[in-house]
Each structure stands twice: as C-alpha cells, then as structure tokens.
C-alpha cells in the first residue's frame, strides 16, 4: 500500500473511530446520547458536571464543573474549571447539540436554559447564550428537563406548566442557535391529539425523550410537576394527594410529524429512557421511581408498541427509588441506580424481556446519575437528585455529594477517584456529559 493510500486509510480510520460524524448507526453515555450525535468511542478527556448551587456553599451558584479524566494528565481526577451561571435554577439535565459543539443545560425552577461552547476549548467551556423566556415562548411550558439533539435542532422536555405548576406539559423544539421553533403538548384524556390510549392513563405528564429513527419513533416518559419536584421530599411523601400527581404513562410519537401515536400505561413515574442500539433491537428501557421496576417499551411482532414490567429493582416496599439508568453499547447490560439506598445495580439484559440482576454495590449515602464510556470500561456516578429531595446528613464517613470515577474490570467496579463537591465548595453534582479534544480535530 502506498503512502497516500495509507494516509487515506488512516484518515478514514480516524474519522470512524473518533468522530462517527457521518455514520447512520451510532452506538452507545456515551450510551445515552442521541443517535444523531458524534460519539467519543475512545478515552474521554473531560466530564462536564451540571451542578446545583447550594446556599451557604462557595459562590452558591449553579455551575458547569469540568473534571479532567485523562489518564496520565497532571490534573487527572481534578476539577480544572468551574463556570458559574449567576444564580440558582435547580440545575438538572444537560445535553449536546447534534454537532456536539454546544452543551445545553437547563434549570427546573427558573426554566432558564444555558448554552455553553464546549468546542473552542473543551477544557474550559464558556457561556454563549441564556434562554430566559422558555415559558413565554413555549406557551406556558415550565421546567425544561431533557436537552436532546435532533438534526440541527434541540428537543426539550418540560416537566410542568405555568398555569397550575402541575404535571401537564409539552415537548419544546429549538434551533441549535437557541431560537424557539415549536411546542408539542403531551396528549391527555381531554385531547388525545389522535393518539390511541392503550390503557387507563393519558395524563399529559413529561420527563425524558429518546428516539429510534429507524422506526420513526420518539418515546417520552412522565414524572411530576413543579409543585411536587420543588417540595420537600418528606412533606411530599406525607401528602397523599400530592403523591397521586405523578406520571403513569409513556407516549410513543411519530418522530417525523411530532404527533403522538400511542399512550402506554407505565404506572409509578417512569423516568429515564434508554433505547437499544442494535440495528434490529426495537426497544427501550425505563424504570419507575415509585414502583421500583424496569419496564420494557418494545415493538411487538405485529409492529405495535407495548410496555411491560420486566424486572424488580430491589425491594419496592423499602422505596429504593430508582433514578438514572445506562445501557451498554452492545445492549447486554443496564446500570440502574437507586437513590435512597445509594446503590448501583447491574442487570443482564441480553434477554430484554427478562433482565437478571448480576451485581449490586453501594456507591454513597445517595446516588443519582450514572454515565459509562462507549467501551463500557469506565463508569461515573454523581449524587444529587433535587435540592429539596437530597439528603442533608449522612452517617460518619459516607459521601453525600460526590463525583466518583470507577473502572469496570472483569465484572467488578474498581474505584479510580472521587471529587467531594462539598469539600470543594462547588455545590451538588447532577448530570454528566463527556468531552474530548478529538471531536474538534484538536
């Protein structure tokens, strides 16, 4: 092979291995990203942690915290940048645009959305735009949650509305530049919008969104409204009426036309949705916070979408409170975190209809998010759920607010390092996203 041919091959290999910008079938939080997005298939350089400001701690502001995770780096395992946004917003989730140059991070309380440039200097994000009229532009949607990339635009889920701060809400679409495009309200009994109600519920609640483009399917889940997620957890749990106001539905939408097609009963607040990556694996998983189950959302042999509870997560009577889940790139394993007991569990999902728990380990006093690398060899955890739901005290020696990095080695988690967000006076860490210089040819 001549030199030029070698160069072309190398260039092609670099393009495929680092960027995957052009491929139709992208793969794995990296395993929870949009299939439209470039993936980091090797070693990530940074983890961006969207962090809640905590009253009385540091500058008290929400911030994007950048942690260096490059093995061998002089600053490996350290916070290399913290960019505050000027206040507290109930920082929650974040997501990249489809070209991965910008990170959108939203606040559930103020409904502000912050857009960060992460490509000019991946080790030092900058704030380039703040959207502060989300409720007004969207026609009354409150609590932007998931920031999900579609081609050339972002799809945001709302959790609530400005009329009654309950759970009725919508999807809201923006251009990558941050300009409002459209609002798509969740179907309800009052207005099914042409959708089929397959069970007992059509509550109009929202939480997460994922898509399976090859099936023209967009899947949304349902949580609860501002009145509940901003309430003290103890108070909420003691309020029987408020506890009735949680979502019980997953909705399957026509991705292209943005029209709801089928409403599925998934009782008990289905939260994160993670769809399989395999070319013929037409299914997604979600977990229900209140009933502690893994649910499979799948297309049956007749091409109809169905929902089925396929596994218990711990002992539901102890309210382990499943939170984040993460599917492996090969669709064989699902990490499941349970907030109340601070544990992560790993399920074998090789048979998606019959997941089997294969491992369980306590990570901290509480746990929320889990993100794994593309190759599954590194797993990261954070601890914060919601300001008014987080625990404030832990037994001696237990971490309350942390970022923890692990290696996944021969079926065991090996601790790599911890960043104590309280000791560092940063706040309480929530969603993680990965960054890499290689994405931008650097």
């Amino acid at each position, binding site marked *: 092979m001549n030199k030029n041919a070698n*160069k*072309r091959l*190398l*260039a*092609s*290999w*670099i*393009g*495929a*291995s*680092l*960027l995957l*910008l*052009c*491929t*139709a*079938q*992208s*793969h794995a939080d990296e395993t929870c990203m949009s*299939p*439209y997005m*470039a993936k980091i*298939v*090797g*070693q990530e350089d940074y983890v961006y942690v969207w962090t809640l400001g905590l009253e009385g701690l540091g500058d008290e502001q929400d911030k994007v915290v950048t942690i260096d995770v490059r093995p061998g780096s002089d600053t490996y395992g350290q916070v290399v940048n913290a960019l505050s946004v000027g206040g507290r917003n109930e920082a929650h989730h974040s997501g990249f645009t*489809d*070209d991965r*140059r910008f990170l959108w991070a939203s606040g559930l309380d103020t409904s502000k959305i912050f857009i960060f440039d992460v490509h000019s200097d991946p080790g030092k994000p900058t704030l380039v735009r703040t959207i502060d009229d989300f409720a007004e532009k969207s026609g009354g949607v409150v609590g932007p949650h998931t920031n999900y990339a579609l*081609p*050339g*635009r972002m799809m945001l889920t709302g959790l609530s509305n400005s009329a009654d701060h309950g759970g009725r809400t919508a999807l809201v*679409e923006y*251009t*990558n*530049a941050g*300009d409002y*495009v*459209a609002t798509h309200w969740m179907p309800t009994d009052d207005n099914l919008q042409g959708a089929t109600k397959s069970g007992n519920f059509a509550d109009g609640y929202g939480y997460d969104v994922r898509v399976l*483009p*090859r*099936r*023209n399917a967009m899947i949304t889940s349902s949580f609860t409204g501002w009145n509940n997620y901003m309430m003290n957890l103890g108070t909420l749990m003691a309020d029987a009426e408020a506890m009735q106001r949680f979502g019980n539905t997953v909705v399957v939408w*026509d*991705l*292209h*036309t*943005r*029209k709801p097609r089928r409403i599925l009963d998934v009782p008990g607040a289905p939260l994160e949705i993670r769809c399989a*990556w*395999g*070319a013929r694996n037409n299914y997604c998983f979600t977990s229900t916070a209140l009933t502690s189950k893994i649910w499979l959302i799948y297309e049956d042999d007749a091409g109809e979408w169905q929902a089925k509870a396929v596994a218990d997560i711990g002992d539901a009577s102890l309210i382990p409170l499943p939170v984040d889940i993460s599917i492996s*790139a*090969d669709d064989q394993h699902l990490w499941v975190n349970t907030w109340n007991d601070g544990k992560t569990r790993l399920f074998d999902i090789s048979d998606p209809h019959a997941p089997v728990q294969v491992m369980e380990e306590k990570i901290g006093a509480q746990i929320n998010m889990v993100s794994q690398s*593309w*190759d599954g*060899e590194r797993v990261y955890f954070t601890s914060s759920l919601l300001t008014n739901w987080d625990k404030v005290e832990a037994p001696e020696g237990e971490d309350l607010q942390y970022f923890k990095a692990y290696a996944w080695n021969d079926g065991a988690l090996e601790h790599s390092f911890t960043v104590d967000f309280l000791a560092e006076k940063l706040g309480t860490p929530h969603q993680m996203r990965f960054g890499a210089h290689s994405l*931008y*040819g650097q």
Partner: protein
Amino acid sequence: MRLLSALLLVTLPLVATSQQQTHHKPVTQSQILAPGYSALEFPAPKPGTYALPPLGEAADGALLDSSGAAVSLHRLYDDKTIVLSFIYTSCPDMNGCPLATFVLGQVQQRLAKDEQAMSNVRLVTVSFDPANDPPDVMAEYGRHFRRGAVDWRFLTATSEGRLAPILDDYDQFVIRDRGPDGETLTTMSHILRVYLIDSDKRIRNIYSPSYLHPDILYADIRTVMKNGGS
C-alpha cells in the same frame, strides 16, 4: 479517481462493510448502511398532513457554479423550493456525502415524473472543499448524477475563506483531518446535513444520515410546496 470512488460508493449501496473500528477494540456491531439506501421501514408521511415549522432564514452567500461563474445563493433560491446539500467529492464515508448525493439523485428521479414539482424545485449541491473541488471537478461530478430536465446545480467556492461564513450561517461543522504528524489530509470530518428551504428562503427541515431518505424528503418537499405556495 475521486469520481470513481464516489461512483463506487453510490452504486454499491447495499453491500455491508466489515466491523467498524473503535479507538481500542472492534465494536461488536457491523457498520450499517444508512436507511436512505434502502426501502423505508415505515409508511412515509402523507404530504401536507403535518407541520414543518421554520428553522430560521436560509443565508445568502457568494459561490461559483460549475462553469466558474459567480452565483449568489439567494439568486439561485429565487422563488423555488430548494434542497441544499454540503458535500466534498472525495468523501470516503458511504453514509456521508455519497448518501446525500444518492438521495438527491432519487429525488431527481421523482421530480422528473412530477412536472409541477419539477418546475418549482431546485437541487443544490455545494462542495465544502474548494481547494480540491474547483468548478471543473464539480461539473464532472454533476455530470455523473444529473439526469433529464431536473434543475440540479453543483457549486463550489473561490476559497475556504470565502466559504467559511456560509458554513457558519448554515451551522455546518467541518474540520479537515490531520495525520499523526499534524499534516493536512485529503479527508474531512463533518456532520452530514441536507437542508430543505421553502420559497420564502426559510429552512423547513434539516436531515442527517439517520433520517435522510428519498421518501421522507419528497414528502417534505410536497408539504412545503403546499404550505409555502411555491
């Protein structure tokens, strides 16, 4: 040679490739060809039954046509419905630029059978590699794909510097690949995007490989024409 590569890629669209390489080890999944090369796996949307809300204005820009004459995008857009694709002719990724040109070729075939649409639609392919895709290369590239009376233009720029603001305006991210020693390679990494622009010069849809399909694009063209009054 570049043209030959491009032709091979678009004429062998259904051949599966070997496993894709990752940074450390092979991915367990074979590389899958983009859906745009195969029959749509779901019913195509019925034109005019759904909304495609505007995604902003389609910017103007100064380019060269395949004869080397200066053209402006807005003059080309005229009052037509436009399908705009950014590519480079030596793109080696089957699911990248060749996919875009393949899909536009399929749309061309349908337009040829639809007189009303044909007179109102213009296809525009723009190279983002002006150094290697001068007008004569674009002309040659176009000759391999253009058929019949359908209006399909193949454009390039006088320089990367003149092209850069256009790519910025369209949010089209492109980086030139570099080798191990930092040398410039002939390949480029980019996110594939195809734009549907209505007769009022508004972007009405953006497509990437997972969703770029002739059936979808044609339904959208018809939808925009109905709503946009082309």
